[in-house]
């Protein structure tokens, strides 16, 4: 039978399965960051004047900001002048059918297990695939268009729906919000835009695969989802990236807006390159995700599976402004080797009878550190608001760390807030129980970890649940199947 040490060793020796580079020719702006670069990006994307103004305002503000220090993370501050802020595949993507797409790109997708054609037919998923920064293929668009649903790349939306963009861009995450959101506002390359009209239920799961491909290119995505009154949409975001030696920067911004009776379900599977066993390389992932339940009875739910990135710094949050609005946050974060994750959520209750649920599971292996940081704020106006938070951490190996930093601010005498957290390792008696019944140690650990994360995995849409389980297995390979 394997000893603990063997199993831990084995997990640590597992290589990153999705590490490969596709040779697609890309156009890259020379590294550096100044006003001209911002203008150049805007010009290359052929943006209207208002976008350029907005970018420049953001850039002006960014220059006055300092790199934040508060996270429980050890990192070297990226050299912002050494990064190239825009990369796009040279073959400008304007395809009608898949045959015209660069075969290399198709191969990449196939390795990742997202065959566009098959998924179109089998899973009924509309995929807006993003390689480096430009949308390559948007499927099912016409079908959605008939229903009045807009699902397109951000740059397309800027041209075709400038009024919507003007109205909503930066309304949830203003460019002044934080260091990386501000940087994103100045130099963002592309992203997704979703608009669901009144009383419409989006018939399929919308999904986007982000991928970082060119060396030394920051990926600055921006997603904006607007759900009009009485509408519903489920949005999936999945990420994988090839192996690189230098740290790559990713600073995305996601904004969600729900009006009366609307619901958005936002699911993420993140599996970017976490760096090698010595902690060399890997993606820096600094993401600002925030939704606002603007209307009454609206709902936003976040589900995330975080297995990748050298550094993760991410707090999908909800502002519960409408009365009776609700929000959920389900998260599993797995860190291995030298990965560091500081992640959690913010629930800001403003409306009456608002409800939020937070379930966060952290699994730490190797020499990694995994922190939950969350804020629950009950404003004076949030009468009868309710929150429940649960944060559990599992430690596998004696060199890793698990931390919990909840912030609870209550300014109201009708609100109820509950928070609980536990940290422990897999108990010997649990493993012994399984051993007794003929289950090997490895299988027992697998069983226990799966059970530990089940509550969150269950919340994922079917298409994603399978991939998520695969990712968990890869992250812990050797002990978990």
């Amino acid at each position, binding site marked *: 039978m394997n000893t603990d040490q063997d199993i831990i060793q084995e997990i640590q020796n597992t290589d990153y399965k999705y590490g490969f580079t596709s040779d697609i020719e890309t156009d890259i702006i020379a590294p550096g960051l100044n006003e001209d670069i911002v203008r150049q990006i805007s010009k290359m994307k052929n943006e209207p004047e208002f976008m350029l103004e907005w970018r420049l305002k953001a850039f002006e503000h960014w220059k006055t900001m300092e790199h934040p220090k508060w996270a429980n993370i050890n990192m070297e501050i990226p050299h912002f002048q050494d990064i190239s802020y825009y990369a796009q595949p040279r073959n400008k993507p304007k395809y009608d059918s898949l045959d015209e797409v660069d075969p290399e790109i198709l191969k990449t997708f196939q390795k990742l297990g997202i065959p566009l054609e098959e998924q179109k037919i089998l899973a009924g998923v509309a995929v807006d695939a993003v390689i480096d920064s430009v949308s390559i293929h948007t499927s099912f668009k016409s079908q959605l268009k008939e229903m009045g649903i807009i699902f397109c790349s951000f740059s397309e939306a800027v041209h075709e729906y400038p009024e919507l963009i003007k109205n909503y861009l930066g309304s949830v995450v203003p460019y002044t919000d934080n260091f990386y959101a501000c940087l994103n506002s100045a130099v963002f390359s592309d992203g997704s835009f979703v608009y669901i009209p009144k009383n419409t239920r989006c018939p399929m799961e919308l999904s986007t695969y982000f991928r970082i491909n060119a060396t030394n290119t920051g990926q600055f995505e921006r997603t904006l989802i607007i759900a009009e009154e009485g509408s519903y949409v489920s949005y999936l975001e999945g990420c994988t990236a090839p192996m690189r030696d230098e740290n790559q920067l990713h600073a995305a911004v996601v904004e969600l807006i729900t009006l009366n009776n609307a619901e958005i379900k936002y699911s993420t599977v993140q599996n970017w390159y976490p760096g090698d066993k010595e902690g060399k390389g890997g993606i820096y992932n600094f993401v600002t995700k925030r939704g606002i339940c603007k209307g009454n009875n609206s709902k936003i739910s976040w589900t995330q599976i975080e297995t990748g990135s050298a550094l993760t710094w991410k707090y999908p949050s909800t502002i519960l402004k409408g009365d009776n609005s609700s929000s959920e946050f389900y998260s599993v974060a797995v860190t291995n080797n030298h990965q560091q994750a500081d992640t959690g959520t913010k629930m800001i209750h403003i409306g009456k009878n608002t409800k939020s649920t937070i379930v966060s599971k952290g699994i730490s292996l190797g020499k990694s550190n995994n922190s939950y940081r969350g804020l629950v704020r009950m404003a004076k106006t949030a009468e009868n608001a309710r929150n429940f938070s649960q944060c559990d951490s599992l430690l*596998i190996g004696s*060199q890793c760390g698990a*931390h919990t930093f909840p912030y*609870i601010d*209550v*300014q109201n005498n009708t609100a109820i807030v*509950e928070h609980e957290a536990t940290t422990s390792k897999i108990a010997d008696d649990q493993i012994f129980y399984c051993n007794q019944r003929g289950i090997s140690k490895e299988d027992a650990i697998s069983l226990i970890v799966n059970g530990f994360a089940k509550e969150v995995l269950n919340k994922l849409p079917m298409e994603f649940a399978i991939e998520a389980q695969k990712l968990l297995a890869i992250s812990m390979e050797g002990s978990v199947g």
Partner: protein
Amino acid sequence: MDSLYNFLISKKSENLAFSSTIRENAIETYKKLPLPVKKQEDWKYSDLSNLFDIEYNEVANNFETNLFKIESKNKLVFINGCLKSELSNFNNKDIEIIPISENAVATNLSIEYINKSNNLDNKFSALNTAFANNGVIIKFKKNNALSEPLVIEYINNSKVATFENTKNIIIAEEGSVSEVIEIHSNKDLCMLTSNIVTNIFVNENASIDYTILQTEKECVKINSHYVHQYKNSKFTAHTFQLDGNLIRNNLIINHENTHCETSLNGIFFPIANQHFDNFTIVNHTNEHCTTNENYRGLANDSGVGIFTGKIFVAKGAQKTLAQQSNKNIVLSNKAKIHSKPQLEIYADDVSCSHGSTTGQIDKDALFYCQSRGISKQDALKLLINAFLVTNIRLIKHKEIATFVEEKINLKLA
């Protein structure tokens, strides 16, 4: 420099226990440390930077009776931060007391204790190390059980704005068993800002039961306790923030060896414009240590109650058991509760948990009482008493328990 620094540097200091090197170093550190403003994570909910810009004056220390008394043969009385030996008495058989104005080396005090009391982790503690001119070193004798508790009374009555640094060091020698009751109370409005730092050394197999009772009129207080626990030692703290204006309690526990046991028990109840901040850290640096933390908070009117509790488990501190619980009730729409329980864990074979709830009085329970002929006011008292009973039961002294209960009922009225 700020006006506080200028005021303190102008005052004459008589602290011989701490060498001039330590104190000069503390001044340098003080200058470098950031102000306690909201941007500093540890002072997120209590911005005390304005305390550095007030014009302070010297004050005469006249005696005045305090609000709450406990009879004991062992008693130390501090008036406006200054020890009054004529009001103090103690049993020489159990306790040895050396004022810090005496040279530590001359009194055969191990220099290790002085070096470990060189607290520099925030601006107030650095200030205290640099300028403390009052305070005593208290020794509980080896293998001796204290027959009566040591009562330390802090009475303030200054009518002019002033700032006092008091530094006490408590050394519980090996195998000693002792009880300390710290009472902060005064009848009238007071303009004194006191910055009290107490270093407590609980040596091998020793145990201390430590009560901090804060019930005073209008005052600003930064009350820090640094506890150093050695093998098999036991430290229990009971903190009751019942009255005052702006109170910040720092309680920092370090486990210097294995098998330490720590219990932290607390109640805070701010009303009107009171601002009560509880800041606790337990550093588990060794194996087989246990922490049990249990704080209950109530807030009424525009009161602000804060609980920050951090449990830090260092690499290698295996078999740590740590449990943290903070439950709060908000009684009015203007009151605020901030709760920040934290776990920072770098060892795997541990069992740590924390829980925090903030809510209000259960309306059904209130209705149940009312339907049985209990007035709403009485029902409220009943339910609040039930909410606090687990914490109150931990108090050893009946007198204190009764006082805490009465005080809370009075504040509820």
